[in-house]
């Protein structure tokens, strides 16, 4: 679970405070794979996708200095917002491969992505996927392995309740309920991730 105090501007203060460093590490761990995946989905070669991720997070990091001045919402949400804008803008530009384009960083930060934009919706879709993958990872570690397998085999792999019940040696009702209860936990986990990182506090 993500824990820790809500990171408002007043709490965060300067970057060199350990609390904000932890948020930063957690933030990059969470969203870097997402950025890379987005870039790959937009047709970049792997090395270029990695480079894009570096540029994005370097720019985010740089703009941390300005957080205090503009910080209204939570620190996490702010991180998320500028990252999303950066990625969407970078990947919306016409040609596929992307130079470092650093001089445009400021512009990107200012720009609001177009809601209708195809890249933006791809981002949001990938983000949702990301949330569920991360949530799944967390929920799985807290479940009985058999419960998790009952869920995974029925809900994700699409196997029938009876097959799974037979293969796990469990009652069908138990499998069916395991599926529901894990699903519910998963949604809760995804929701808490989303409200911690992605919504204005």
């Amino acid at each position, binding site marked *: 679970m993500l824990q820790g105090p809500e990171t408002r501007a007043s709490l965060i203060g300067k970057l060199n405070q350990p609390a904000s*460093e932890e948020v*930063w*590490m957690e933030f*990059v*761990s969470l969203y*870097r*794979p997402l950025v*890379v*995946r987005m870039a*790959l*989905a937009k*047709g970049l*070669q*792997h*090395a270029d996708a*990695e480079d894009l*991720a*570096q*540029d994005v*997070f*370097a*720019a985010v*990091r*740089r703009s941390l200095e300005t957080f205090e001045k503009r910080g209204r919402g939570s620190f996490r949400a702010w991180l998320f917002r500028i990252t999303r804008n950066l990625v969407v803008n970078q990947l919306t530009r016409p*040609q*596929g*491969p992307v130079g*470092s384009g*650093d*001089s445009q960083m*400021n512009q990107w930060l200012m720009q609001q992505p177009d809601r209708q934009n195809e890249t933006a919706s791809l981002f949001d879709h*990938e983000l*949702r*996927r990301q949330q*569920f*993958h*991360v949530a*799944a*990872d967390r929920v*799985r570690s807290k479940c009985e392995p058999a419960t*998790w*397998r009952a869920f*995974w085999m029925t*809900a*994700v*792999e*699409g196997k029938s309740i009876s097959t799974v019940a037979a293969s796990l040696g469990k*009652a069908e*009702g*138990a499998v*069916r*309920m395991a599926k*529901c*209860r894990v*699903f*519910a*936990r*998963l*949604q*809760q986990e995804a929701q808490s991730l989303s409200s911690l990182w992605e919504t204005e506090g």
Partner: protein
Amino acid sequence: MIARIGDDQHQRDRLHYDRQTLDDFLHDRLAARSEEVTRHIESCEDCQCVVEDMAEANLSWRDLAELLAEPEGTFVNGCAASPHGSASDDAAADQRSGQSDAASFLQPSRHPDSIGRFARYEVKQILGRGGMGIVMRAFDTSLGRHCAVKVLAPELACSAAARQRFSREAKSAAAVVHPHVVPIQTVDEHDGLPYLVMPVVDGPSLQQRVEHDGPLTAIEAVRIAAQIADGLSAAHQQGLVHRDIKPANILLENSVERVQITDFGLARAVDDASMTRSGVIAGTPQYMSPEQAHGDAIDHRSDLFSLGSVMYFMLTGRSPFRAETTMGVLNRIGNDDPRSLREINADVPAWLDAIVMRLLSKNPDQRYQCSSEVAQLLKGWQAHLLDPTRADAPEPQRPTSLRANVTGSGRKIGNTLPWFLAAGVFGFFVWAATIIILQTDHGTLRIDSHADENLPIVIRKGDEVVDELSVTREGASIQVKSGSYIVEIVGDVDGFEVQNNAVVIKRGATHVAKIVETKPAGNAQTDVIMQTPDRSQPPKLSPFTRMEFQGAQVLVTYRSEQYELLEIDRFAIQDLVKQTQEHFGRSWKKRLSEDLVEVLWKLGNFPGESVHLKLKRLDSGKVVSGEAKMTEANRHALYRDNAHNQAEGRSVEDYFHTVLAGNTSVKADAVPLDEFLDKLSEQHRIPIILDRNSLKQAGITSNVNVSIEMKNVSLRMVLNIALAKVGCKYEVKNEIIRVFAAPKP
């Protein structure tokens, strides 16, 4: 709480719970009687239906399945969560993550205490994984004994040349039989992977010993050094050079403390497999000889230099040439005098200091000439130390002329050129007497004169005189293209010094002149590009949608048809290939295909939106030519195609990418950046080099502190997080991983 829908208390299955209870059940909020409720619901289909409905309220089962389905091949990042249900999925994810492929070549084993099987060996444990090979502790089932198996890293084994080289070197190493050399028992290949088998030596390495117990006494160091020299002489007699003598390769057998040298000749085998070009070395080459670090031909005397470094380490607990970065170490090996042993450890006798310093001569001619001589000498001293009354001290050492060699003063240097080495991107100076050889990627040479009279200077490229000038006190600047230049200074000067990439020429104590190379390449150039993208950045255009390389032929797809490419804008393809290779090194194929316009710009040719092509039909052999339009769309198609068609020939860079994608754990608490990178470099055996110039220009100090603590994330992620914090980024280029200041907006 319980809604009795059925009245008959005996028909328990008709008894249902209300929505609130079911919701609590679904969300694990049941406080009381949860077992009873669970038992009921799990056997009551009606309740189950309600729960299922509730679970689906915000997100359908179908959407969930879609969200959690593996997005095709995109969860490649080492840190991606792997929330897969089955073990096979996990294994697949692990393989992709790059780290656990250390053992991916193992076959399953039936032995419970074995992690897998390789040929006839039951593998018990992976002892270590360097960049080049994997060492495993294993049990030889047919001979019934324990052994160490060393396998060439699978990613290097895809090159036939590398495999042959590994096998050949391992076989010649196997021919060395000596009590102080770990014997190689078997050299073989299994499933296309060459491997060798050695006995398990029970005991610490010299590295561990010194790290654990601190510096050794003189007598202990002499004993060990004598045995190393003895082992080396057996190999040298067979014409085999170890090439990687370092404390970690010296094993001290438990109880008897017999010294055994391991990994004979393998350095050469892996050198060839991984790094074909000179000048760039994986890991921290602290024990390398100058000629080795410089990429020159080496002979057995290189091992003697390394022996000197190892002795230095034994007596002081540190290697003689330490610096914060690999490049720093290389520089120091080439240029610096090590600090005297006696300054660090006053207990070291003068004669021992002299022996070590002679071994550490930059010039191989001034070291001892053979290892048996060293072994003899050390044994003599050992006997004397053990019993001074019975054994006489060996002849005192002649003082060496070491100091005269390294400072570069005077003209008698002959073939012992001190040098300054930097990896490809930084330029490369070598100087001797009054001639300075300068290797540059094109830039400006700035010469400042401090002399009272004008300083006559001649700049040549090959036999051609590029410029002949007289430098006044105002100084002079000369534009130079890439290549090697000889800068000749006419007049009396008697010393040189390298300071921050500048050559300072001295006469006595005064600076006569200073030569600095300023380069438009790197960040400066990038900045310019950023400001005026239209003019200074070559557009990403191409007439082709695909480019392939078959032997000397370049095949292109132009308007959906494949041709052999003969000429672009009057440049014969052979010339173009050659020039691209010169400019871009190993990545030339990628650059020629993807950055065609940039390549042409480099050659002084600035095409607009079209180029003149000469193509040969593959079927009829007919040659066609004409103007071809270049488009972004073509180039993009080619770029995407390249991701696939260039995957075969694995380059060093690809290998680095694999390592970068692998998982790692780091903990650094306010560690200076340079040290931090050195550690990562060493740990993963990849060259991560800090571009100090770039940092300096950006006003970042190279010892800015890094704090990071992460477990099981990709090395990329670690670099990303740590570097972004200090305003830096990395790139994999020219066979190194370069860390530089991220350009500012």
